[in-house]
């Protein structure tokens, strides 16, 4: 590790902390129906859209209605993308003449984009037409992110409201998240990326002769527009297979910084929005603080492991950090930072190959996902994932002050506990059981690129990534019919299986009376609460995965010290 690496991380995180408040303030205005400075531009579009779709923006929905709207929107979006992928050969903007996708590949890819996962069992530049990228994938990049934000806002309303039955209107939240948050930031961001050198065109790929004399095909296409929403919406699906490691997607140190900022921007801002909407800013900062500790811890561990390098390589008299699978342009620190950021959230974009990280360096992204991507998290999903941990913490530790647990004045009782537990079960069930089945099946291990502990890590990583809708991969594992179907199902259940109980929880909280705060109240904004929250996250969240991780990255690292590799 060196000062330069730490300075990079400090500059990055300093900017995140600075931007959290203005972005959060702006979003709280957007979602509380206030008139924002963009209203003159987007207001007419918004109102026109409501008229077109016959939406009355003043009618609010109960949690059940809200969830039904989310599901209906999901079903339509899934069918739409599936049909598009199956027919792209006959549609325009396909200069490379890519064929239609097979049924199982189309299923996997459409679920993947619907659920904000962007897991890719294919290479974008050799599979997807420009039309598919723009009309299909980009569409979902926007609306899957907007769906996550909308649900998070509905959950926050549930906490903030008392004695109410409704949580807002999904169509309005979805529209406003897209129009006022995602589109404007993406527009500006895409232009900045174009300035940095990211392509934005409809040309066919350029074939050039390289210096070595080989023919090289340079990918073009509408890349910058796709790139910015890929990060901002924590989608992560690369235009090209190399994702943000490719010089076209991520050409400069500045573009690298912008992309990382875009990944954290909305998640960090939402913690401020949260404080604002529950009318106690300290609550938002408490979540921000807990997330920050986890971010710093994750980065430090990953950076330390990568900077320490591979002892076997050191024996060859090559000193320094682990550079396998990394872009020389970014080096160890920026790669470790990007890997931490992309798995703290549900983004999954990568600027280095996580598969080539040192085992402990790779454990950090894996563990980040196993915690539930709650460090700023996927847009929206991170906040409501954190709220499940908050509810668990309030319940366990809140009793210790001698009152039945309450959070922000709401009593946490039987129903809230059932729903929080239901939500908390989703991750271990989906990340562990399919992994266990897969290691026993030929189809599950057939496409593994590595055996032993490393191969096992690849399987663990795949199901953690798909459950949590991250989409980054340990690579080393190829798609087949079995994996296409199973990971598709896991992505769907990981998204909606978590979303439904947390919305029910919000619905239940919204209907409750608020207990006024007294000296006897458990304070959920104090440093000790942040400490307890972290304790519950680590013990309840992470320890579930310790036995499995012990057989993956942990034993791999221990064996590497003894000279054994896979």
């Amino acid at each position: 590790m060196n000062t330069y690496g730490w300075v990079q991380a400090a500059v990055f995180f300093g900017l995140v902390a600075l931007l959290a408040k203005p972005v959060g303030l702006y979003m709280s205005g957007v979602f509380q129906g206030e008139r924002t400075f963009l209203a003159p531009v987007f207001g007419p579009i918004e109102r026109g859209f409501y008229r077109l779709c016959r939406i009355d923006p003043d009618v609010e929905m109960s949690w059940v209605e809200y969830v039904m709207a989310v599901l209906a929107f999901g079903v339509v979006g899934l069918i739409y993308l599936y049909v598009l992928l199956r027919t792209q050969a006959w549609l325009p903007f396909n200069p490379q003449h890519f064929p239609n996708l097979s049924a199982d590949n189309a299923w996997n890819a459409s679920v993947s984009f619907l659920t904000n996962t962007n897991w890719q069992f294919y290479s974008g530049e050799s599979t997807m037409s420009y039309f598919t990228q723009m009309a299909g994938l980009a569409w979902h990049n926007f609306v899957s992110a907007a769906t996550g934000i909308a649900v998070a806002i509905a959950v926050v309303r549930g906490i903030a409201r008392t004695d109410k039955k409704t949580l807002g209107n999904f169509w309005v939240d979805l529209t406003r998240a897209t129009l006022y948050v995602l589109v404007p930031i993406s527009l500006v961001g895409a232009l900045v990326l174009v300035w940095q050198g990211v392509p934005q065109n409809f040309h066919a790929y350029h074939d050039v002769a390289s210096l070595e004399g080989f023919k090289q095909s340079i990918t073009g296409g509408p890349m910058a527009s796709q790139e910015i929403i890929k990060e901002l919406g924590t989608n992560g699906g690369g235009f090209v297979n190399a994702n943000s490691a490719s010089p076209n997607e991520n050409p400069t140190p500045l573009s690298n910084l912008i992309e990382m900022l875009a990944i954290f921007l909305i998640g960090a801002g939402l913690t401020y929005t949260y404080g604002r909407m529950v009318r106690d800013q300290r609550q938002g900062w408490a979540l921000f603080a807990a997330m920050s500790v986890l971010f710093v811890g994750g980065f430090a561990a990953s950076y330390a492991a990568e900077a320490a390098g591979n002892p076997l390589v050191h024996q060859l008299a090559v000193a320094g950090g682990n550079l396998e699978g990394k872009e020389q342009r970014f080096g160890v620190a920026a790669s470790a930072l990007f890997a931490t950021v992309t798995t703290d959230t549900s983004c999954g974009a990568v600027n280095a190959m996580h598969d080539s990280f040192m085992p402990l360096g790779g454990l950090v992204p894996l563990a980040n996902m196993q915690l539930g991507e709650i460090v700023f998290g996927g847009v929206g999903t991170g906040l409501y994932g954190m709220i499940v941990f908050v509810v668990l913490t309030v319940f366990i530790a809140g009793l210790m002050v001698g009152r039945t647990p309450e959070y922000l004045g709401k009593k946490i009782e039987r129903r809230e506990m059932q729903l929080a537990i239901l939500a908390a079960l989703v991750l271990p069930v989906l990340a562990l059981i399919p992994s266990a089945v897969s290691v026993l099946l030929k189809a599950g291990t057939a496409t593994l690129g590595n055996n032993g502990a490393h191969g096992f890590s690849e399987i663990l990583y795949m199901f953690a990534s798909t459950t949590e809708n991250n989409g980054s991969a340990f690579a080393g594992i190829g798609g087949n019919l079995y994996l296409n179907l199973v990971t598709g199902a896991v992505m769907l259940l990981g998204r909606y299986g978590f979303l439904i109980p947390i919305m029910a929880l919000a619905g239940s909280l919204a209907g409750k009376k608020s207990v006024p705060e007294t000296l006897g109240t458990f304070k959920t904004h104090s440093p000790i609460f942040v400490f307890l929250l972290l304790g519950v996250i680590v013990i309840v969240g992470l320890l579930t995965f310790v036995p499995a991780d012990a057989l993956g990255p942990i034993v791999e690292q221990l064996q590497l010290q003894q000279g054994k590799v896979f």
Partner: protein
Amino acid sequence: MISQRRIERRPQSRSLLDTAILWRATLDSFVKLDPRVQMRNPVMFVVEVGAAAVTGFFFRDIFTPGHGSAGFDFAIAAWLWFTVVFANFAEAMAEGRGKAQAEFMRRTKTETTARRVVDGKEEVVSAAALRRGDVVRVNAGELVPGDGDVIEGAASVDESAITGESAPVIRAAGGDRSAVTGGTRVLSDSILIRITSNPGETFLDRMIALVEGAQRQKTPNEIALAILLAGLTIIFVIAVATLAPFSIYAGAHQSVTVLIALLVCLIPTTIGGLLSAIGIAGMDRVMQRNVLAASGRAVEAAGDVDTLLLDKTGTITLGNRQASEFVAAPGVTVEELSLAAYLSSLPDETPEGQSIVTLAQTSISGEVAIPAGSTFVPFSAYTRMSGLDLAGGGAIRKGAPDAVRAWVRERGGEDSGELSKDVERIARSGGTPLLLARDGRVLAAIHLKDILKPNTKERFDRLRAMGIRTVMITGDNPLTANAIAREAGVDDFLAEATPETKMALIKREQVSGRLVAMTGDGTNDAPALAQADVGVAMNSGTQAAKEAANMIDLDSDPTKLIEIVEIGKQLLMTRGALTTFSIANDVAKYFAILPAMFVIAYPAMDVLNVMRLNPHSAILSAVIFNALIIVALIPLALKGVAYRPRGADAVLRDNVLVYGVGGIILPFIGIKMIDMLLAAFHLT
């Protein structure tokens, strides 16, 4: 006889290590191994299923050798069974004291007969035949056959069977002291009682059921916690079950015994095993303070109380107010007013009245008697005055200033507002001002002084630190109430309280989300007692009040409410502390078990064996620790965690340090010590 009874009635004061209770609890802990009993507690049920499975493996090892180590399977099976038995023992110990107490009460509840009055004739029937609405006569020396209200006569009643209090109490028809309880004994006189409960539903029956825990239902918070524990159990079942295929893939095949051992160590057995004991012990602690709680729910609610409504008299001040000063009206002599005060108070048996007599005597020379033919007018809530109608047509009144002034005007007297400054001064100082008047003239103001109970201020400061608001309820005027409230240190007061204003106050507090606790005894209090989240009725009160309340204080001590709140808080704290402790323990157990599991396949794993445990005994050591920690924590579960009334922040910080951080560190030490012992005795 009576004193002996009193000693006998308090078996709850026995120590935790009473041999009879211990013996019985030991037996019960094996009876409770019945899977139908364990099913109610998912955490311990998983342990029992695991114990049964490993026992099966042990027999398989014996009869078909070659599968696994019979010695290891035996040791693990034995300690898993111990884990369940220890948890059962905790529950049985908690129930033990209640059972002992119930047995005593059953002996009290002997078969009695009753004289039922039908159409004016008495007939002797069995007490069991009495129904609600029957009227019975009870004579001196007889047992009251059932719960009821005195409808005629008055008697002194020995209630020691119920309250433990040996001094007899007066029970009389009408008013707030009319309730009698089945099983108590009438010592003097003869009374008519209307029975208010059917057999099997009497106070004594309910009390027996309560202390026995027969009707014990899980409280709302207990249910929510049980859901959390069940959820954690499922999560760890998944984590351990998937470890089987993972370890096969890794070439480090694990026996089912080892996986079950890991599972039992990870699931929250400590809190799972002690949860019901904590709840029962909490109820028991309330009972030891001579308070009957209708349900655990009420005790739990007491911990959540935000507002305490405290009756001024008996809680904040000593019941008796003392006359300390007469202030004469202009032109009235001391002799004249003292005589009037003396005459009007002589027949008044209230402590206040007697204190006026005492004060007046100091200024009267010679013997004075009430003129024959005079009638005493007792105090009533409507007139707010008492006094004497003299034989000759004159009258004396003393009472609330506005009532007395109205009386004076009514009798054609002049009321020029004299003494109003003095009245205000007395009220402002916290005293109760009375006016004394004779025939159309106001003679004097009487200063009745309220005497605060000692240490009230400290008490209310403690409550405030816990975040509880205290509201003093008093019939006094606002000025007086304000002065006493300030002196006593309560947060707020309700002056000139009537049942209606009291009810309105409770509802107002509840609408803003607060939980309210109050005490009461009169029939007037019944609606408010029912409305309050925690309503404590005095045993001396009416049947209506007792039925409306969710707790009954057998000692009839209004300050008990504060103790009840503290017990409720302590109960919740104990649950939280042990849950935190239980979960925090998992860290060390991982470090004990995982390296031992995989060190053979992956020797490099030895690095993680930070406790340097013997790989052959590490798993057993963790299982033993897991079982023994339940036993070690039984006293804590029964007594509750150390409790001092402080703010949430301080309480949380201490508990987190002790049970959270301590819960992480302690098992490292404990497991290591057990492992060293196993090695020392060559048990590995």
